[in-house]
């Protein structure tokens, strides 16, 4: 795995929330291509790992999402062929600081250490349709939010086609399908569980920076 790529504004409510500002400076018009960002290697961690809330930050946003894991390398794949390049899926929590601006790459917001915990890979043939999964998130045992992977602005095959048009996705690389508007938040001391039916469960404890 060398690349994990996230996509912003891929849920209709997230797009709608950002839409008013798309018509003014500095954006002027809505994005024509998927709005993408990297979750670099320092963000990667696993189930059970503790995650530090950075010093000076009171809370973080929890981006419960589905990770699409590449099998056969994908270069300029057509939408109709894209699913052949999917090896499996994993539960991912795409963590960020609140109030990410849209103009500049979100390095300070989304690329902190361990801000991309991920569960084990479930083989693709065990998931009938990645566009019909229910994602649940709970903080300290209390359900916070639940959403389905339906109605994405770009489906999994559309995303893989759009990205691989310019960037070859290699075996093990992962694309995250996005997060709805108003994601739940967590503070230090919180235990967060993300679950996706048929894919798995991911649990992480948030702690104050310096305590990990």
């Amino acid at each position: 795995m060398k690349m994990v790529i996230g996509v912003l504004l891929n849920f209709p409510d997230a797009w709608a929330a950002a839409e008013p500002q798309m018509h003014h400076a500095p954006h002027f018009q809505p994005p024509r291509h998927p709005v993408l960002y990297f979750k670099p290697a320092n963000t990667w961690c696993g189930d059970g790992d503790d995650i530090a809330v950075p010093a000076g930050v009171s809370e973080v946003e929890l981006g419960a999402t589905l990770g699409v894991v590449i099998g056969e390398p994908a270069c300029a794949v057509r939408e109709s062929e894209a699913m052949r390049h999917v090896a499996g899926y994993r539960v991912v929590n795409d963590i960020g600081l609140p109030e990410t601006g849209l103009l500049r790459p979100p390095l300070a917001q989304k690329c902190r250490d361990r801000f991309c915990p991920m569960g084990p890979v479930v083989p693709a043939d065990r998931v009938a349709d990645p566009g019909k999964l229910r994602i649940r998130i709970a903080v300290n045992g209390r359900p916070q939010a639940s959403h389905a992977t339906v109605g994405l602005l770009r489906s999994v095959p559309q995303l893989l086609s759009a990205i691989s048009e310019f960037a070859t996705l290699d075996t093990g690389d992962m694309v995250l399908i996005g997060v709805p508007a108003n994601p739940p938040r967590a503070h230090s001391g919180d235990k967060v569980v993300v679950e996706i039916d048929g894919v798995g469960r991911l649990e992480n404890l948030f702690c104050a920076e310096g305590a990990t």
Partner: protein
Amino acid sequence: MKTGRVVHGGAIHRCTPAGADRIRLADGRLLAEAEVQWLAPFEPRTIFALALNYAQHASELAAKSSSDQAGFLQAQMHQPIVFLKGANSVVGHRSFTRRPAEAEFMHYECELAVVIGHEGRRIRRANALAHVAGYTVANDYAIRNFLEPYFRPNLRVKSRDGGTVLGPWLVPAAELPDPMALQLTTHLDGALVQQGCSADMIHDVPSLIEYLSGLMTLSPGDVILTGTPAGSVDVTAGSEVVCTVQGVGSLLNTLVSDWRA
């Protein structure tokens, strides 16, 4: 000693310079540099890149009015604009880069690349260079008409296959005690088109290491492309681009036309 990574005879080799246009493989073989395939001189982990880290280049690209420019540069002084580049984009010396048919303005960016050697978090400026393994030359291609003002510069501009040229050599930090006084030049088909000095960076190498390690852990293999000076010229299929950083190396890349239907 400068080191490179090349493919020859079906295997990957470490190599070192051996006089003009010649290299020596680790097993002692002497070869012309043009008879091997060059890889990036190390395997990059996270690739950081700076947007607009030279004031003149920032002026060249940014605002039209001088008051806009002043405001823009002031914001830039405050905090560097950093983006990430994908591993897919990396190619080596003497490589080829595709100019897509839809490109209207595609340009090279000659940059000093700083390779991290020792892990660190919250590294102080004064100690920053102790975390550097070495330096190489980067050509950080951009296609201006693919820019969109969302997480700009967006991946479709900066993380294209073949869009990050690295090499030829990894120069150990000990052989380059002052990275902040190096001439950068780009020649396009032999003509000088870009010239600058690393002394003119808005955020210098120690500051960048301090800033990034204040956000996240830097690890061996992470590389920081430190931005490019003024002098952006459109390149076309067949263009030969040579980016040179004084004391680090000269990096050749050739543009090729779009092979996709």
